[in-house]
């Protein structure tokens, strides 16, 4: 790691141990599975073995008679008692309930739920639920699903195409006509996800006397309590979600709304506390937590000097059986559709297609990483075609430091950046000529070695603008977050946040920024997670937003405390607030340090001595702050131009890979990533997320895939076949930090929760293609498994052509 960026901060950007470490490293985390309520009962699920089938009938009698069983719930019953789950886009023919009603649409879809004394008995009884299925022809291939004669996943919707939007930003046709060169290519990102160690879990208890549903869930979802109450047909204040539950990993996927509606309903109707903890199989096939599954067809227009003038991109996403978050994940990339480049005109078509597969959920980057992968593949192709060194090509196209704020064709303004500087730093740190020499040495030994390069952006500060962009019925223009800071009589500081955390270190974040503003030791600041009834509004940690949004809210509340302290101090010192200085909580007359009041004295005045308070000031010492997304508050234009997110972090990857010519096995020899996310609040946390993000991206590039067979069976339901990278597979990763502060945020911070993941898949593929160029082979789909790659290398060496077996390249055909 290179030296940290210098900062003028007291606590921010300093290397400090995250507050949460002690709890987690000593096994003291409190996860949903640790919530053990007296009399709690357990749910097991009956799930569909078919990709598509009509449910002719369900016989629950044997299960109801089994030992320890309290109840069996079917989809028809639940659909009568609840409202459909919220769908982000307008598809009235797609109604989604926790349990399938009438028809199953993917393998693993829940059909019935059994509640019993323990999970063993529940599973015993679940086997006795007899479901009479009439299997039907499923639709599995997304390119078949768009055809008019394809079976319909939702007959009422009339089409499998649930979303099709096309925008044209800039003079695309003119740029294509004027350019020296044009290329078209396909990039295929197969279905993977984030797969946390902790599966989704939820416990619910209905208090009949209070008419209140208490919920503990491993949740990372905006507006979860509202959605839950709506589906259960309860007023919002009849649902209390406890946010003090540690979430064992998420990066987007912990949105168990269907789990929670089901369990909430069961707890309410059975009048017992009910718990559902997904097992791994349930999580993999029916947790509705798969990630993007995309086919990109891209055309680029560029000049002989390497300048990329325009891009046409069509992204077809196989969203699975229900809309979920998948269509919206085609919307977010609009905000960084040109990556870090000065591409002047873009045509973008987003198509979401329903198939008989598991539902997608939000996944780290919300669709940005696949898009980056597709763009970067084009940059490499242009470089190869023109014979320009690949990094040099990118540098020629980078937005320059003096061009910020920079408006991209799709309407978002990038806040700040210095991409050239970051890459200079990376090249210095890694000794690029030595890396090239190492690659060439491997090549001389007869090996297939390559260097991969990827540069891309992390849009951050999530504001959900993709919702109004893709659904005109949705007029969301705020995506606020909040914090309340209290100073108690003893003078200690407590901050209250209104959402749960899934490993992002929010307690460290909040305590650090509050400590910074109040000049108090952050380790003395306690951070608590409210429940949804006493929390200020939050939109949860999505879209790399918490450093910006929760950090901004915490700082805002702390500033109000600081102002109150200054006001009380000045009042009691008999001077104006302009004439006092605040220092580490104490206040003294400017220039006269001996004339002052200590923190303790001021706190005591606020809490006990109202007679010493300035007129009109409320007693106590507390402040709430609700922070709106910087630059938020406007709806997208009719042309689809939108300020997607406020802040844009940058990352540049450089990786050395070797491909075993005979086995097709890829090994990564060296990995360095340059990262600029503005002001870093806590370096360990940011670096930890970046390391994990790179590993996650390597997983997407080389290992992880939810594989379906032609009949719609998910054939990778366990970790035998869904390959998560382990420490063995991840090389040493070196992070080179740079800081270009954002002008829009409290301390210049940007988001970082998706860092690493956004560029790693592109970088790994870039390295592999650099290696394979020696035998005239190019790959364009991930993950790259040794079996398939080995077959292609063998074919290429036999026939001398390298494109056999590639995902078919389809030239841009324009509107259809």
């Amino acid at each position, binding site marked *: 790691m290179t030296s940290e960026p210098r900062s003028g901060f007291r606590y921010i950007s300093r290397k400090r141990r995250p507050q949460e470490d002690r709890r987690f490293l000593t096994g003291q985390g409190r996860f949903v599975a640790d919530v053990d309520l007296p009399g709690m009962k357990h749910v097991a699920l009956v799930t569909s*073995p078919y990709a598509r089938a009509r449910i002719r009938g369900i016989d629950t009698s044997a299960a109801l008679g089994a030992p320890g069983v309290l109840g069996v719930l079917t989809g028809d019953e639940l659909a009568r008692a609840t409202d459909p789950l919220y769908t982000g886009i307008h598809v009235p023919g797609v109604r989604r309930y926790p349990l399938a009603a009438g028809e199953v649409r993917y393998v693993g879809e829940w059909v019935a739920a059994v509640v019993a004394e323990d999970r063993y008995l529940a599973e015993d009884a679940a086997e006795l639920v007899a479901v009479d299925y009439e299997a039907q022809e499923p639709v599995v291939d997304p390119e078949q699903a768009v055809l008019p004669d394809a079976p319909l996943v939702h007959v009422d919707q009339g089409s499998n195409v649930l979303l099709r939007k096309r925008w044209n930003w800039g003079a695309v046709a003119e740029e294509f006509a004027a350019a020296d060169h044009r290329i078209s290519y396909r990039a295929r990102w197969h279905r993977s996800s984030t797969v946390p160690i902790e599966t989704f879990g939820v416990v619910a208890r209905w208090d009949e006397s209070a008419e209140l549903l208490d919920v503990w869930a491993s949740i990372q979802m905006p507006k979860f309590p509202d959605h839950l109450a709506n589906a259960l047909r309860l007023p919002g204040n009849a649902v209390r979600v406890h946010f003090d539950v540690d979430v064992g990993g998420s990066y987007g996927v912990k949105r168990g709304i269907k789990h929670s509606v089901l369990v909430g309903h069961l707890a309410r109707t059975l009048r017992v506390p009910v718990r559902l903890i997904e097992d791994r199989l349930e999580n993999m096939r029916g947790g509705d937590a798969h990630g993007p599954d995309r086919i990109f067809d891209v055309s680029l227009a560029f000049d002989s000097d390497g300048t990329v003038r325009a891009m046409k991109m069509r992204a077809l996403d196989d969203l699975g059986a229900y809309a979920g978050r998948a269509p919206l994940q085609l919307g977010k990339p609009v905000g960084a559709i040109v990556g870090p480049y000065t591409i002047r005109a873009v045509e973008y078509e987003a198509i979401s297609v329903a198939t008989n597969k598991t539902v997608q959920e939000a996944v780290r980057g919300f669709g940005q990483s696949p898009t980056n992968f597709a763009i970067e593949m084009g940059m490499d192709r242009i470089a190869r075609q023109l014979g320009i060194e690949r990094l040099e090509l990118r540098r020629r196209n980078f937005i320059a430091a003096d061009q910020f704020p920079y408006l991209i064709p799709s309407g978002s303004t990038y806040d700040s950046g210095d991409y050239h500087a970051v890459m200079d730093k990376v090249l210095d740190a890694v000794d690029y000529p030595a890396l090239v020499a190492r690659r060439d040495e491997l090549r001389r030994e007869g090996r297939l070695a390559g260097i991969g390069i990827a540069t891309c952006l992390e849009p951050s500060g999530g504001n959900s603008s993709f919702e109004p962009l893709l659904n005109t019925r949705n007029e969301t223009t705020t995506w606020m977050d909040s914090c309340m800071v209290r100073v108690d009589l003893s003078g200690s500081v407590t901050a209250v946040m209104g959402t749960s955390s899934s490993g992002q270190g929010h307690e460290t974040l909040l305590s650090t920024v509050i400590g910074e503003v109040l000049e108090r030791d952050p380790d003395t600041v306690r951070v608590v997670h409210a429940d949804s009834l006493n929390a200020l509004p939050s939109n949860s940690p999505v879209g790399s937003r918490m450093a910006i949004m929760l950090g901004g809210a915490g700082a805002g509340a702390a500033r109000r405390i600081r102002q109150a302290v200054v006001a009380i101090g000045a009042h009691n010192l008999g001077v104006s607030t302009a004439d006092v200085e605040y220092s580490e909580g104490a206040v003294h007359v400017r220039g006269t340090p001996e004339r002052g009041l200590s923190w303790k004295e001021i706190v005591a005045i606020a809490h006990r001595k109202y007679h010493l308070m300035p007129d009109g000031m409320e007693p106590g010492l507390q402040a709430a702050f609700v922070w709106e997304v910087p630059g938020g508050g406007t709806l997208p234009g009719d042309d689809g131009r939108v300020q997607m997110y406020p802040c844009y972090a940058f990352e540049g990857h450089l990786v050395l890979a070797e491909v075993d010519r005979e086995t097709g096995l890829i090994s990564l020899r060296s990995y360095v990533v340059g990262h600029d996310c503005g002001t870093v609040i806590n370096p360990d946390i940011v670096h930890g997320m970046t390391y994990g993000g790179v590993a996650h991206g390597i997983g997407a590039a080389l290992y992880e895939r939810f594989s379906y067979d*032609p*009949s719609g*069976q998910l*054939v990778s339901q366990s970790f035998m076949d869904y390959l998560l990278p382990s420490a063995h597979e991840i090389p040493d990763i070196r992070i080179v930090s740079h800081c270009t502060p954002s002008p829009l945020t409290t301390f210049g911070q940007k988001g970082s929760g998706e860092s690493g993941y956004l560029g790693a898949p592109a970088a790994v593929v870039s390295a592999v293609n650099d290696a394979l160029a020696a035998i005239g082979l190019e790959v364009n789909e991930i993950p790259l498994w040794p079996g398939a790659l080995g077959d292609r290398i063998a074919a290429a060496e036999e026939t001398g052509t390298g494109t056999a077996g590639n995902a078919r390249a389809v030239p841009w055909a324009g509107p259809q």
Partner: protein
Amino acid sequence: MEIKFNGEHTFPVPREVLWTHLNDPKVLTVCLPGCTGMEQIGEDVYETSLKLQVASVGGTFTGKIALTDKVEPAECHMQMEGSGTIGHATGRAAFELEEVSDSETRMVYTGTGDVGGLVAGVGQRVLGGVTKYLTRRFLTTLDKYLADEAVAAKGDGNTNPS
């Protein structure tokens, strides 16, 4: 998960004998691995139950077998479907019986199966091999059945049990 299987096997019996046996639910009950019962529910349609155990992995299944497109004694198609606790399967197979000699018949078979449910979700790596093994076991059991029957028949001729 689609599984293809094909091969050939030569039985030491005349074609008509093999044909008769292949159409005899009693014989199939004995020779189909794990078969615990077979009941005729229509012309050439049988309901079967299986308790299948391959190494540690096992379960009970119920299903249907239908024989179609018969060209006696040379050709027959078979359609199968079944489901049980750990998964479900459908399959179709075609058998051709060729006379090798008066006392030998070669069976040439091709088939495809489609397996779903848990066993496809977690067992894809070995399903192909297991299918091959079960097919072989069916053929060798039938072989042995025919041989035993021949010995018994021979016994019948030579002695006269009371």
